[in-house]
């Protein structure tokens, strides 16, 4: 067997913190051949990013420390190199792209300058680097590369920025590209394009790709082999097919089971009296039309999923319905009253019926309030709901309802995991006994396995308490097991609105079909078929 390109042996990385030594990665080993794609699959806290940062020498030391192991690139240990030798590896031999290209590009330099620097930093003459930058930008599919070179990162879209990052990474034709969640922040259709671009470039240059991801779909789409990590330990490795069809470790099985979009869909509901009737809502910000006439009905105990990519107007719609933003025109009839014309006093009384759960619970929960304060604050604002003597008991009840316990009451948000924080946010919304909860990307920031739990929780609340949900998401599979109706939005318009089974099994509109085709399936076979279908018309 030939020598592998990258050979990670018994790598351990630990962080020295005030609370003691935290092992981030424990004794992991994996290898990667030339031209091969290896995925590191894991959820937050699994250490998947730390191990790749160690390869790139990006672990801050201190507080980080490589406790043991070697990282062999072409047989040479990266950890034993002199600083000068090490400086020549990054960019030239190994390059890296990251999750959020906007923050990873320097905002104050042009993209042309930044790509050129990747070459000039390693001694390429300026003129040569300039010409190569132009070629690279064209190659990764940036329109008008000549003009694009003089533009700044904020002038590009998310997908284009990631293409710029790829151009920069590939400037010196590295042997290995490390991609850390490269498509997580991107729209589904853009994600498919970027992954396709990576594969194409891999064929052209013969580079190996090490892709770090939490998404089984991404693994199925791009990887040859996969290693699964949990809490800093490598629990399983194998080819993508082996891992998907015959997972050996319990954690891998759990991950695969949690992948959304495989359960039973809700049956179509009988038509009932609508609780909320929305007609022709419009909203513009300056010259930008965010909502171009949106209409739908929502009955009690029903879940409407609104799916769309960035800029589709889905979040604007949520804000307008809750009067966090004023619409320009349209009607939203709620129990016979138009939400949009209520006076502030009427709106205040109605607020308790309409609650919202936001995407990022870290930001939506005040870090200086205890769980008890966060949840009971609702009754401070609406004192008629519950006498103060019963607050403690009710908070305990609500916490139990969302799968937490009464002893969590006196803790602060930072003492919880992301999924638990979102449960607290849900308990807070429930405190006012609302009729409708609007969830704006409420599970997008959560790990897959936690996502499944939170969705199950919401579905249970709908069933038991008869609460209606408007569930906003950018990804179709997430809403499949949960929604009654699905509304697909694009550029401020409703593209398709129908029962969940109709939208998933027989989508009428080309855009819905494109969205479905672009969303990645965790099953490598299914994903291969998707890919073939995508390539067909071309």
């Amino acid at each position, binding site marked *: 067997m030939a020598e592998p390109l990258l050979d990670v042996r018994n790598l351990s990385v630990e962080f020295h913190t005030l609370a003691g030594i935290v092992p981030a990665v424990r004794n992991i080993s994996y290898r990667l051949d030339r031209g091969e794609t290896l995925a590191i699959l894991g959820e937050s806290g699994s250490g998947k990013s730390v191990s790749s940062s160690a390869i*790139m020498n990006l672990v801050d030391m201190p507080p980080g420390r490589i406790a043991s192991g070697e990282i062999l690139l072409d047989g040479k240990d990266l950890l034993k190199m002199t600083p000068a030798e090490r*400086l020549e590896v990054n960019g030239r031999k190994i390059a890296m792209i*990251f999750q*959020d290209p906007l923050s990873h*590009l*320097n905002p*104050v330099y042009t993209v042309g300058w930044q790509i050129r620097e990747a070459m000039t*930093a390693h001694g390429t003459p300026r003129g040569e680097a300039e010409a190569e930058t132009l070629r690279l930008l064209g190659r990764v599919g940036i329109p008008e590369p000549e003009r694009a070179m003089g533009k700044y990162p904020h002038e590009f879209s998310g997908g284009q920025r990631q293409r710029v990052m790829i151009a*920069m990474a590939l400037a010196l034709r590295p042997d290995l590209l490390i991609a850390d969640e490269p498509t997580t922040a991107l729209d589904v259709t853009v994600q498919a394009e970027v992954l396709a671009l990576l594969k194409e470039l891999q064929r052209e240059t013969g580079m190996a790709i090490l892709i770090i991801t939490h998404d089984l779909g991404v693994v199925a789409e791009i990887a040859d082999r996969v290693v699964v990590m949990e809490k800093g330990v490598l629990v399983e490795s194998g080819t993508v097919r082996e891992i998907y069809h015959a997972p050996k470790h319990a954690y891998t099985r759990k991950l695969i089971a949690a992948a959304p979009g495989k359960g039973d869909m809700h049956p179509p509901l009988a038509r009932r009296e609508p609780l909320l009737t929305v007609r022709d809502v419009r909203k513009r910000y300056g010259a930008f039309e965010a909502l171009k006439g949106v209409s739908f009905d929502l009955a009690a105990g029903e879940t409407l999923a609104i799916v769309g990519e960035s800029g589709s107007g889905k979040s604007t719609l949520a804000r307008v319905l809750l009067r966090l933003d004023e619409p320009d025109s349209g009607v939203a009839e709620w129990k016979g009253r138009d939400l949009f014309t209520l006076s502030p006093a009427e709106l205040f009384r109605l607020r308790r019926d309409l609650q919202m759960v936001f995407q990022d619970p870290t930001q939506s929960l005040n870090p200086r309030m205890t769980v008890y304060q966060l949840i009971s604050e609702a009754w401070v604002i609406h004192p008629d709901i519950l006498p103060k003597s019963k607050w403690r008991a009710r908070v305990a009840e609500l916490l139990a309802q969302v799968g937490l316990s009464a002893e969590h009451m006196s803790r602060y948000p930072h003492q919880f995991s992301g999924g638990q924080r979102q449960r607290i946010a849900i308990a807070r919304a429930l405190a006012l006994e609302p009729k409708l909860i609007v969830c704006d990307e409420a599970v997008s920031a959560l790990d897959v396995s936690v996502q499944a739990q939170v969705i199950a929780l919401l579905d249970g609340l709908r069933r038991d308490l008869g609460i209606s949900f408007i569930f906003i998401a950018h990804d179709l599979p997430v809403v499949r097991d949960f929604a009654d109706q699905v509304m697909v939005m694009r550029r401020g318009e409703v593209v398709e609105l129908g029962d969940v089974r109709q939208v998933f099994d027989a989508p009428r509109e080309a855009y819905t079909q494109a969205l479905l085709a672009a969303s990645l399936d965790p099953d490598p076979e299914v994903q291969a078929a998707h890919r073939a279908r995508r390539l067909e018309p071309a």
Partner: protein
Amino acid sequence: MLRFIRQRSLSSLISLIGLLVLVFFLSRLTGDPAALFLPVEASAELKQQFRELHGLNDPIMVQFGRYVGNVLTGDLGESLRKARPALDVVLEAFTWTLWLAVITMTLVAVAAIVVGALAAFRSGGFFDRFASTVSLVGASVPDFWVAIVAIVVFSVHLAWLPTSGTGSLAHWILPVAVLFVRPFGIIVQVVRGSMIGALSSAYVKTARAKGVKAGPIIFVHALRNAMLPVITVMGDQAASLLNGAVIVETIFGFPGVGKLMIDSILQRDFNVVLAAILVTALAIFLMNLLIDLAYALLDPRIRH
């Protein structure tokens, strides 16, 4: 970019007009100008004469119009003590202050940026602790105390430098050194804080992944991003120097606008006081415009 400059100049202009109104009415509404401008023991006839001479019996709006007209033609009245146009007196002193401010701020900027950036690069290290202590002391000590101690040590005991006045290069050293201390201390702290943020940012990680060396990472990638809050504070500090470093100028007998203002107030030379206010305000407006331009130059997102 031109549009940006035009917009900024326009909004500065509005503030300038506001200032003009304020200065005028301050001098008219704080009491009878005749009583203000003339000595206390002046006779009633003298006051009446004075009023007629300066048109103080006209309606206030007419007076204001005349005042604005005068200001626009550069006529700010005569200095009552020096029998020269007040504007000339002020501009002469202001030139001294401007030089003092420019020299001091240039030294401060270079030193504070280098020290702050290096402290941030190895934050928590020996150099960082040393720089933090020095800057904290610098930002905290009162300048009159530093000035006096400096005179005692360098002029009286060591006799290396003159105590006050102007004339040679050596005369500049103590005022510049004393004025240097506080802005340096404050700006080092701002640079350090801002650089620590910039150095831990995602784009610096990208630069390291590209194989960029430490020097360009600090001074090319991070510094330009870290400069925005630094420039704001620098503007603040420079403004207080332009206002006339009253105490330091007085202690060193430095003929700047700060000392001129104090002298003129004591001598009731109001035309000079008003002219000095207008000139320094105009200078500060111009400097704020420069700061806005510097923002736009540093950060393309502000330009759009």
